[in-house]
């Protein structure tokens, strides 16, 4: 039993990204969902499964607005920024079980104009331990929980802030070429180094954006590939992984290893490929260091070698492994990684425009969230 080639990403959709949408979160999600459903050549009423993100918008909202007569599957995958990719696994499991054929994964938020992240995490049950033991001493925001992981990596392996800057700078370059991105001004490593310190070692330009907008995908049964107008993108392998001490980084035996380290070998084995076979990677980038650490945990380089790997130019367009060709959460928009899935599908369809990786056949997308949960999907163009 495996989820290999059980399903395809049949449709993708995105709204414009901004800092003030002026729309409700539900309206944003419906807009992106409709684009994804039409891209898949489907009607909203063909959707028979929905995996909402978080609790702001629920499956019932899609039944109501789409007029779905018989929604057969709904669930959530509460892994923070790994939810979208973990949701692909859940959708495929439901498809494989014969429960449904077309599962919608919507994501949308008013992250800039609505409630900000430091306030949002205080409401999340996954953060109850840090809420009791770390927020009272002044550790209030994700940047403060993740910074000691990065600092430990720097002390153990000699990783540098300039190497984080390389990630920020190359990602910005991709965002500018892409077009639908919030950040449009070029950024050098020197700009990164000059940006103000938020929580050492993270500077402002190590941190992702807070954004308004929505992105959505449709995961369909592989049988549907022959009816698809666009090029099908097959999910070859997918897995989620939870780190040791998942709710308290402070208590994690190894601060420099994420849940992805458990998921990645499973996904690559399922896909029957190795990291060296991958043409393009969309890597969850809430912070620059999190990209570096995931490159190691996914197996693109050894533990401790993420710094030299990015410094070599490997993740730039034209490099060995172009990363975040859309500009990511750092420079396109913070859509909790659904924008990463959308971009990977575009790359594998050959529809990625100015940041298209030549002849991209195999790609991966990762998610990271909630103190270290991870998920990864390996996809192949049809």
């Amino acid at each position: 039993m495996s989820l290999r080639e059980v399903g395809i990403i049949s449709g993708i959709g995105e709204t414009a990204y901004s800092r003030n949408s002026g729309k409700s979160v539900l309206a944003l999600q419906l807009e992106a969902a409709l684009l994804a459903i039409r891209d898949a050549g489907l009607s909203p009423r063909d959707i028979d499964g929905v995996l909402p993100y978080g609790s702001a918008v629920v499956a019932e909202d899609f039944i109501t607005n789409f007029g779905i007569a018989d929604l057969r599957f709904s669930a959530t995958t509460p892994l923070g920024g790994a939810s979208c990719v973990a949701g692909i696994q859940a959708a495929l499991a439901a498809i494989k079980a014969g429960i449904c054929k077309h599962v919608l994964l919507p994501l949308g938020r008013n992250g800039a104009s609505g409630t900000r992240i430091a306030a949002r995490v205080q409401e999340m049950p996954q953060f109850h331990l840090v809420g009791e033991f770390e927020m009272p001493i002044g550790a209030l925001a994700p940047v403060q929980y993740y910074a000691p992981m990065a600092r430990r990596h720097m002390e153990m392996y000699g990783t540098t802030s300039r190497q984080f800057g390389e990630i920020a700078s190359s990602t910005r370059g991709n965002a500018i070429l892409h077009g639908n991105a919030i950040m449009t001004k070029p950024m050098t490593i020197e700009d990164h180094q000059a940006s103000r310190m938020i929580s050492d070692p993270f500077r402002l330009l190590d941190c992702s954006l807070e954004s308004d907008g929505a992105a959505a995908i449709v995961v369909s049964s592989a049988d549907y590939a022959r009816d698809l107008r666009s090029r099908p993108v097959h999910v070859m392998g997918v897995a989620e992984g939870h780190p040791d001490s998942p709710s308290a980084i402070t208590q994690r035996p190894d601060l420099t290893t994420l849940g992805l380290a458990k998921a990645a070998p499973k996904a690559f084995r399922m896909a029957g490929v190795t990291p060296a076979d991958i043409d393009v990677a969309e890597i969850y980038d809430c912070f620059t260091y999190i990209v570096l650490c995931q490159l190691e945990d996914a197996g693109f380089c050894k533990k401790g070698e993420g710094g030299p790997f990015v410094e070599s130019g490997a993740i730039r367009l034209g490099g060995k492994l172009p990363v975040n060709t859309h500009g990511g959460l750092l420079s396109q928009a913070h859509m909790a990684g659904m924008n990463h899935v959308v971009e990977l599908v575009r790359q594998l369809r050959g529809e990625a425009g100015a940041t298209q990786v030549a002849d991209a056949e195999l790609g991966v997308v990762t998610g990271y969230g909630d103190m270290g949960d991870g998920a990864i999907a390996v996809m192949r163009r049809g």
Partner: protein
Amino acid sequence: MTDKSYNKPVPEPTPDSRPFWDSLASGRLSFQKCGACGVIRHYPRPMCSACHSMATEWVEASGRGKVHSWTVTHHAFNPGFRDELPMVLATVDMEERVRMNAQLRGVDPASLTIGLPVRVDYEQVREGLTLPFMRVDRPG
């Protein structure tokens, strides 16, 4: 300091964690110890992950540890902490083989290293709430 003037987040102890906070209020740091196999654990929780016993004791900690990692926060995510910036938040390997996250005070951030010996101290921040913090544990 009155409750009204205290504008930082406060813990909401649970039945599992209340002895930790009560202990701090009396100027002692305590950790949970499994009543069956003796493994010490933190943060407080109902079950020992080594043997799944829910029998729990509390033991007083030595208060000594070594820096495992850290961050130096420069941005005020809550106005209540603005006057304390920049603030060193240290991840500390305690002698009891659990970790604590605590402010490390009176240290030059440039001198921070893995393994730096630290020792816990206590501050009553308001009626009924004492928070732990760390100081460098200088020999002698």
